């Protein structure tokens, strides 16, 4: 008897508009009971009627109301009747009361609503069938809901139907003819994003949405976060991709592959094509908000530059040859094995990527430690947050930030050090700005006038505009002020910290050399300003420190991190919500890459390689003997390569030839390798020195997890097939097997299961739990089944907190007669890191080249005017950039970004680095600037080399003649 085959499939979620309860939740603990249409409803005090009704499953018609925005009450569609109340109150602005009796529907309400809709529709185009939001339009739905059948006024009267479209923004279209002036876009720009770029211009019939001074969107202050587009209930603000493609049919929840905020997104799909990325309202890091990169800049995944077949060549002067996966993997394994045989076991290594998943980085370090047989594995965190790992581990006991992002909503004082959240971590910046508008005080410690020092409805109480390179002096001065004025939290210190170390630190900090007065000359910050900031921070009651690469990328990066931890411990600002020490991580998975054992001295979970017990655990699971001594860090690999002892390198998803400092040195090192294997989406700068190119897969093409700056592990889900056939972890597995070390994972979940088996802080993590909870903050184990939002609650991870001494040692990079200016580097909002992704999107319209910011005083001295070509020279090298003369930088300081390889910012940066971790000192380089008329020699050579390499790539793709 034959049986019908059963239909089985793991179903995607069908596309639907996310539920909107019409008003944000109330935080009140007091509950209120009311009846709505005869149904009893119990909700927190302060809840509005519209939300209470929605919670009970009664969806009152609405247009201007949204649970992402504060109640507004303008559309008059949500009106209801309330027993004993006069008239027809708007349910979106009316708060519930005990015993309230609400009626949401009767003939009177129906008439009123229909009349309101009739007025709206009398001035609205009736092109629903060809409208981009057809099928997903709230106005259309409401017209249907209220039963509008006729518009008695006709359509011939004065109207806005001919209003002109604004298509200046590459990602969304503004069609004012469809606007109902509900103000949702304006409110989203204010309340959700905090930019205040949009306003309602004019009054009455003349009212219209305007960007800045009624400018095109692209020229306005709009930061293109898309919150307005998401908020719009009509087709007035619409994603251009939706206009082109039509409505999505299914959606998949996944995690953004840009910055360390790690926003959760719904990838809204048609087949394997992404129509749009919509921030997930249930996303625990972003709560339904996003930035221009995450929401819009995903086009790189299908860019024509993607390489989708493996390539090999004997020498970097040879043309590439497109080959099968089998041949490429065999070629790579053979090369590495031969190098190992010839030059010894220490001559090869690998680099993991913060742009790849946890599972992928774990597998690379496993392959290096087992198949390669050494500990020569490192990761790009080396050049960004390695000092965070070192500094926080040694003082608090764990190499991670202490808080959840939501903690900022309970902070009274926010101290931002060396970070520019509005451009580098925009979604968290919006949350921070919200708290600042609620009244939190703000201290900014930065050589630059970052946006948060003064922007719409935000004004820093203190801006300590220190000289680049004097962070440790400032943190010591702040600590001195706290201790000398008796502002420390003695009971906290006695209860939670090591007493001898505190005493030692106290004596050290109180030395006169650490006083704000003594250090004012070094830092350039008046002592009284430092003392004012110290008093504000110590007063709290909840004071939170957020810091970025302006802390870590210094010669004393690790010292500064320890200084920050000292200050937080001394004032009792660790171990609860609203306080803490939070590094703002650069790339999406920096935290994860570090957690997964990417550093040469430690195994997953930050356990030192010399620890025999930990090693034994891994040796049993992996079936190999592990070396007990640290391997090479990235700069050590480069030095050993130049010395001729290090010959083979496997690089997954990194681009050291653009991102690392002193590029000339990096290029020399890469050219010295006999086998460089690069696995990436594009032929990046590093790949131009490679012998094997293995095509990588974007975050849309694979399964895995990312861990954000708040230790939150979030799922990455495959929404399309890998363009080249394999997910990145599969490629590593192929290489390990070819090297003679067997791996046979069938799915990344099996890799995570192995991590959980071997790592105490991940013990309770599984894909099943991630599916159930959405995301998990580690530690997640028997003690914290659902994860840990706030760390060090009762005790520090290391037991008692350890105050470490932080002597200020001036950097060797200081201004001299030859190099009188200090260069500091950073980022812009629209570009991401080396720009390999964002340069291949329309984000390039905002930042098509890297610019040198120079103060008017320094510019004038050098005869430099706006947009002039400026030569920039340090002891490492020189390059040429275009000038932006601006007071955003202080006199004596110049600033640029490194998003474009040809600008050569890292030709100028030096090999100076953090004493503890060798994290490069990107933030301080002594330079001279001068007017020029042509590109630098390096740039000309770079141009030639790039052209040659692209030609060698074109040859791989050219048809082979018979």
């Amino acid at each position, binding site marked *: 008897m034959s049986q019908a085959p059963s239909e089985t499939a793991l179903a995607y979620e069908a596309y639907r508009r996310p539920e909107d309860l019409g008003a944000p939740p109330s935080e009140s603990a007091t509950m209120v009971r009311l009846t709505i249409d005869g149904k009893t409803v119990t909700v927190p005090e302060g809840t509005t009627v519209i939300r209470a009704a929605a919670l009970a499953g009664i969806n009152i018609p609405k247009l201007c109301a949204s649970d992402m925005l504060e109640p507004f009450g303008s559309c008059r569609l949500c009106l209801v009747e309330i027993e004993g109340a006069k008239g027809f109150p708007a349910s979106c602005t009316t708060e519930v009361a005990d015993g309230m009796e609400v009626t949401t529907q009767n003939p009177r309400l129906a008439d009123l609503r229909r009349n309101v809709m009739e007025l709206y529709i009398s001035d609205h185009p009736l092109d629903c069938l060809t409208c981009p939001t057809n099928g997903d339009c709230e106005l259309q739905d409401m017209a249907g809901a209220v039963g509008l059948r006729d518009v008695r006024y006709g359509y011939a009267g004065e109207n806005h139907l001919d209003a002109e479209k604004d298509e200046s923004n590459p990602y969304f279209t503004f069609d004012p003819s469809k606007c109902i002036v509900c103000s949702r876009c304006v409110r989203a720009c204010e309340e959700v994003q905090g930019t205040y770029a949009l306003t309602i211009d004019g009054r009455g019939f003349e009212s219209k949405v305007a960007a800045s001074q009624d400018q095109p969107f692209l020229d306005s202050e709009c930061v293109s976060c898309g919150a307005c587009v998401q908020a719009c209930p009509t087709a007035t603000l619409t994603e251009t991709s939706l206009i082109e493609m039509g409505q999505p049919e299914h959606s998949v929840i996944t995690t953004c592959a840009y910055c360390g905020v790690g926003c959760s997104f719904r990838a809204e799909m048609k087949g394997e094509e992404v129509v749009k990325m919509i921030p997930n309202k249930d996303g625990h890091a972003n709560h339904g908000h996003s930035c221009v990169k995450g929401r819009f800049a995903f086009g790189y995944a299908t860019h024509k530059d993607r390489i989708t077949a493996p390539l090999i060549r004997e020498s970097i002067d040879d043309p590439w040859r497109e080959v099968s996966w089998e041949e490429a993997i065999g070629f790579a394994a053979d090369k590495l094995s031969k190098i190992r045989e010839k030059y010894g076991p220490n001559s090869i290594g690998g680099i993991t990527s913060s742009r790849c998943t946890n599972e992928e980085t774990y597998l690379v370090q496993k392959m290096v430690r087992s198949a390669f047989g050494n500990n020569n594995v490192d990761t790009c965190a080396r050049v960004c947050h390695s000092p965070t790992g070192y500094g926080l581990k040694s003082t608090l006991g764990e190499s991670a930030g202490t808080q959840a992002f939501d903690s900022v909503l309970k902070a009274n004082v926010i101290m931002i050090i060396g970070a520019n959240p509005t451009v580098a971590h925009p979604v968290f910046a919006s949350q921070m700005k919200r708290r600042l508008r609620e009244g939190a005080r703000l201290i900014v410690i930065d050589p630059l006038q970052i946006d948060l020092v003064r922007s719409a409805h935000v004004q820093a109480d203190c801006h300590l505009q220190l000289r680049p390179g004097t962070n440790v002096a400032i943190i010591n001065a702040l600590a001195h002020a706290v201790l000398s004025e008796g502002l420390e939290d003695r009971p906290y210190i006695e209860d939670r910290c090591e007493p001898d170390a505190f005493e030692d630190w106290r004596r050290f900090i109180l030395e006169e050399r650490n006083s704000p007065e003594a250090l004012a000359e070094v830092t350039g910050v008046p002592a009284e300003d430092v003392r004012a900031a110290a008093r504000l921070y110590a007063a709290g009651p909840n004071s939170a420190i957020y810091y970025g690469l302006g802390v870590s990328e210094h010669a004393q990066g690790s010292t500064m991190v320890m200084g920050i931890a000292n200050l937080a411990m001394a004032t009792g600002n660790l171990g609860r919500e609203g306080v803490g020490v939070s590094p703002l991580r650069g790339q999406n998975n920096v935290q994860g890459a570090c957690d997964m054992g990417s550093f040469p001295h430690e195994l997953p979970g930050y356990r030192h390689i010399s620890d025999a017990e930990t090693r034994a655990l891994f040796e049993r699971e992996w079936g190999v003997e592990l070396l007990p001594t640290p391997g090479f860090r990235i700069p050590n690999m480069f030095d050993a390569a130049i010395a001729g002892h290090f010959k083979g390198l496997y690089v997954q998803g990194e681009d050291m030839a653009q991102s690392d400092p002193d590029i000339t040195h990096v290029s020399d090192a890469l050219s010295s390798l006999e086998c460089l294997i690069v696995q990436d989406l594009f032929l990046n700068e590093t790949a131009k020195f490679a012998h094997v190119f293995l095509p990588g897969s974007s975050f849309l093409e694979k399964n895995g997890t990312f861990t954000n700056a708040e230790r939150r592990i979030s799922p990455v889900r495959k929404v399309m097939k890998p363009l080249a056939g394999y997910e990145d972890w599969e490629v590593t597995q192929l290489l390990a097997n070819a090297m003679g070390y067997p791996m046979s994972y069938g799915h990344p979940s099996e890799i995570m299961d192995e991590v959980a088996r071997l790592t105490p802080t991940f013990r309770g993590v599984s894909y099943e739990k991630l599916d159930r909870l959405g995301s998990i903050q580690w530690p997640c184990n028997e003690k914290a089944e659902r994860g840990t939002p706030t760390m060090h609650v009762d005790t520090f991870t290391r037991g008692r907190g350890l105050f470490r001494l932080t*002597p200020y040692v001036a950097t060797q990079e200081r201004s001299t007669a030859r190099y009188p200016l200090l260069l500091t580097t950073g980022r812009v909002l629209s570009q991401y890191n080396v720009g390999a992704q964002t340069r291949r999107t329309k984000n390039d319209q905002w930042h098509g080249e890297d610019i040198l910011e120079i103060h008017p005083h320094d510019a004038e001295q050098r005869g430099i005017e706006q947009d002039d070509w400026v030569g920039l020279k340090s002891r490492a090298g020189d390059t040429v950039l275009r000038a932006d003369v601006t007071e955003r930088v202080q006199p004596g300081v110049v600033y640029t970004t490194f998003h474009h390889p040809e600008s050569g910012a890292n030709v100028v940066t030096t090999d100076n680095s953090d004493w503890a971790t060798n994290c490069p000192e990107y933030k301080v380089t002594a330079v001279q600037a001068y007017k020029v008329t042509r590109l630098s020699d390096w740039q000309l050579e770079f141009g030639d080399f790039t052209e040659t390499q692209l030609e060698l790539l074109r040859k791989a793709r050219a048809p082979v003649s018979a």
Partner: protein
Amino acid sequence: MNTAKLVRMANDIAANFDCGRDRASEVAGVVDHIGRFWSPYMLDAMARHMQSGDIGLSGLAEQALRELIEERSQSAETTHDP
């Protein structure tokens, strides 16, 4: 290996432990730090360099490195390095 760079690294490490206080604990700090983070290859190169005349190390860095190298050679005598 570029020993000038190793010397600079060691001096940087020593400078950050040098607080003008208890010398023994400062030396121990440098020994522990270099022991935890330098690959044996780098230590070997440093050991060779330190046999030369002008080694360019600060007092604290030199003292710590001599202790560390001594410690290693002792443990190498008693155990077999894989």
